[in-house]
Structure formats: C-alpha cells, structure tokens
C-alpha cells in the first residue's frame, strides 16, 4: 500500500522545494530553479490525476497509464480544464511568491479570473459573474487602493523576507499532497452510492432540471430567497455591521493622527508621544 504512494511524495517534495526557492528570502538565489521545480511538481500531480499513474491496481506497474483509472476507462484529458487550472494555480503561486505587493495583487486578480472561469465551466454562471464583480472588481481594487495609500516607497525590506520559508512551504505542500492522495484514493474504489449517483439516467434527467437548468440565475435566486431567506437577511445585516465597524476603526485611527499632530491638550499630547514610538511600548 505504502509503495504506491511514492509519486505523491515526489510531487510534494518538488512542490515544497520549488515554493521554498520562490519565496522571498534575504538572499534570493535560485528563483528560476524554484519556478521550474514548482512546474515539475504540478505537472507530476497532473499526470497522477489525469492518467491515474498512482491509482494503479496492486501488481500493475505505474507506467501502464490506463491501468488504474477509476472505472477503468481511458483518461479523457480535457484541454480547456487543464488550461484554466494551470492559469489559476500558476498565478496563485506568483501572487504568493512575488516580492512586490502590487504584483501580488495583480496576479491574485488573475487567479480570481481563472477561478471565475472554472466556476463557469461547472455551470455556475452567477458565481462566475459575482467573483469577477465582487472580488476582482471591488475587493482587489480596495487592496490596490490601500497599497497605494500605505506603501508609497517602493519595495520595503519586509517584502523581501519571509517567516520560515522552508517550514511554511513544507506545511502547504504536505497539505496539498495528503489532500490529493486521499481524494484520488477515495475515488479509486468508489462505493456503489457514488458510481450510481454519477451515472444513473434518473440523475442525468434531474440534472437537466436541477443545477444545470437553462434558467440558472432564476433557479439560484429562487433557492436563495426560499430555503435560505433567513441567511440572506443575516448576510445583509453582516454587511451593514461590517460597514459600521470599518468606519469606526478608520475614524479612531484618524483621531490618533490628530493627536500626534498636537491639536489636543496635555493628556492627548502625552499619549501621542507614547504612540509616536510605534505600537505598544512594553517589551
């Protein structure tokens, strides 16, 4: 059993080493090698997933590509999905590893577009649109706006450093490796419920009227405002509370700035000198 899992270990190791080399460090060496290693790890993972290299049945070699696919069928490599997934994941890697936070935000926007395309590919039209409008249109622009406000001096030294680059790269890569392995092995011998669920004609017919219905947005809206009406109300309240909270936080901060500029009396002045050192003063 354990002997079948070495390809996952290799992919995890390649991915972890590549991420470690890519993350900003005090001496940034080997970043091209890191990019190559990450690509190699992801490519190996793709091979494992698509050609069932490691979901092989006991006794058959890994290189008999079609041996161990779930349900024994030949791998249907979907080029569109592969391209979308590659764009999403590679721009995610770039967003996490580039030193300049502005480039991080822009590559994160690319990740969001890739995710939106993946949603669309699943038939989730409204979510694709909402991701582009809310995430890429509002949240990302707010990120860039705050970056412009708070980061006027180009690359700071702390953008070219990481906490424990090797440990965090290993943690993330091991998480990915274990999740991939358990996912694929869970589907290696799918129980009767899963296989019938995916293939039975009743389900196929239900799909036509269910989640893949032509009136997608109307159906989703119907679901939202019938079974999840209370949740929608709570979400609206949450948005209002978040708005009030953000304004309260910013108002408090600008009050502090006034203190520091000396527009207040003695008490405020003493407090301001304490704050000018920056942050809590105890060590």
């Amino acid at each position, binding site marked *: 059993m354990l002997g079948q899992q070495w390809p996952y270990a290799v992919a995890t190791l390649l991915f972890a080493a590549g991420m470690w080399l890519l993350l900003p460090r005090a001496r940034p060496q080997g970043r091209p090698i890191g990019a190559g290693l990450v690509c190699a790890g992801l490519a190996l993972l793709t091979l494992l997933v698509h050609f069932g290299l490691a979901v092989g049945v006991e006794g058959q070699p890994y290189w008999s590509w079609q041996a161990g696919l779930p349900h024994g069928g030949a791998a249907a490599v979907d080029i569109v999905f592969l391209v979308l997934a590659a764009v999403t994941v590679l721009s995610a890697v770039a967003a996490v590893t580039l030193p300049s936070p502005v480039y991080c935000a822009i590559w994160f926007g690319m990740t969001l577009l890739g995710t939106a395309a993946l949603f669309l590919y699943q038939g989730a039209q409204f*979510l694709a649109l909402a991701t582009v409008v809310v995430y890429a249109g509002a949240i990302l622009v707010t990120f860039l706006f705050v970056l412009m406000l708070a980061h006027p001096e180009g690359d700071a030294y702390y953008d070219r450093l990481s906490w424990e680059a090797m440990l965090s790269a290993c943690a993330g890569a091991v998480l990915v490796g274990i999740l991939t392995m358990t996912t694929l092995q869970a589907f290696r011998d799918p129980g009767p419920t899963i296989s019938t669920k995916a293939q039975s004609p009743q389900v196929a017919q239900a799909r036509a009227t269910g989640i893949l219905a032509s009136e997608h947005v109307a159906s989703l809206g119907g679901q939202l405002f019938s079974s999840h009406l209370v949740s929608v109300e709570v979400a609206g309240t*949450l948005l209002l*509370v*978040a708005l009030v909270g953000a304004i309260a936080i910013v108002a408090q901060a600008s009050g*502090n700035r006034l203190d520091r500029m000396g527009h207040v009396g003695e008490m405020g002045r003493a407090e301001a000198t304490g704050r000018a050192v920056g942050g809590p003063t105890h060590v």
Partner: protein
Amino acid sequence: MSELQLLYNYLIVGALLFGIGLIGFLSRRNMIVMFLAAEMMLQGVSVSLVAWGRFHNDWGGQVLVVFIITVAACEAGIALALVLMLFHRAGKLDIAFWQNIRESNQPRFVDHELPADGEAVGQHWPKLTPSGIEPPAKEEELVHRIHV
C-alpha cells in the same frame, strides 16, 4: 470528462489553491499580502463547494459560495481598515512590528539577515544632502530598519 472526473479535478484544484494560500499566509510579512493569501484559501474552498454541488445536483454548494463571497467582502473591508490603522501607528506594513502582542513565553523575533538594499535590485531614489546632526536612533528601529 465524466462527472466523477470533474469532481476530483476540481477538488484537487481547490486543494492546491488552499495550500498555496496557506504557504503565503504563513510566510509573508506584508499584512496586505497576508490578507490576499487568506482570500485565496477562501477561493479554494469555494471551488470545492461548487464541484460538490454539481456532483450532487444540489444548490447548497453554490448558495454557500454566495455567502462566502459576502463574508469575504465584509472581511476585506474590516481588515483593510484595520491595516490602514496599524500602518498609521507603525509607519509600515510589517507584521513583525506588532510582535509585542505575542505570548509572554515566546522569544522575541529578530531579523538575522536582511536582504540587499533596494538599489541592488534595481530601485533608484534621489539622494538628499544630509544637514544638521543625526539624531540617535532608537534600538527598536535599529532592529527593523536598515537605513538607520
């Protein structure tokens, strides 16, 4: 692709997004980039939820993702307001500046090796002629800044 292949492909893309976001959140020191990484982890979860919803022909996955987007918007608003406030207090976005709020039994973090100056990586700034007496630098700043 069959429905099953679609499901596990999407689950693995979601796992990758989550893992990459985890790496970024653990390792980066810029607060804004940390929040970007946290949002990326949310994206990974959303991808998995949409895939499960499709597989089970259930609207629950997509409805949950709608709420994830709502909560992410709230989170981003509050987090960025907080980041701006912290920036006004500290003068930088470095999360290590706030290590005084760590547990009392944890050792203090000190940068042992600082990266090369910005000019070494292609940044150029105008030089001003220094005038007057240089004030003594504070120890706290000597730990964190290379220019003093």
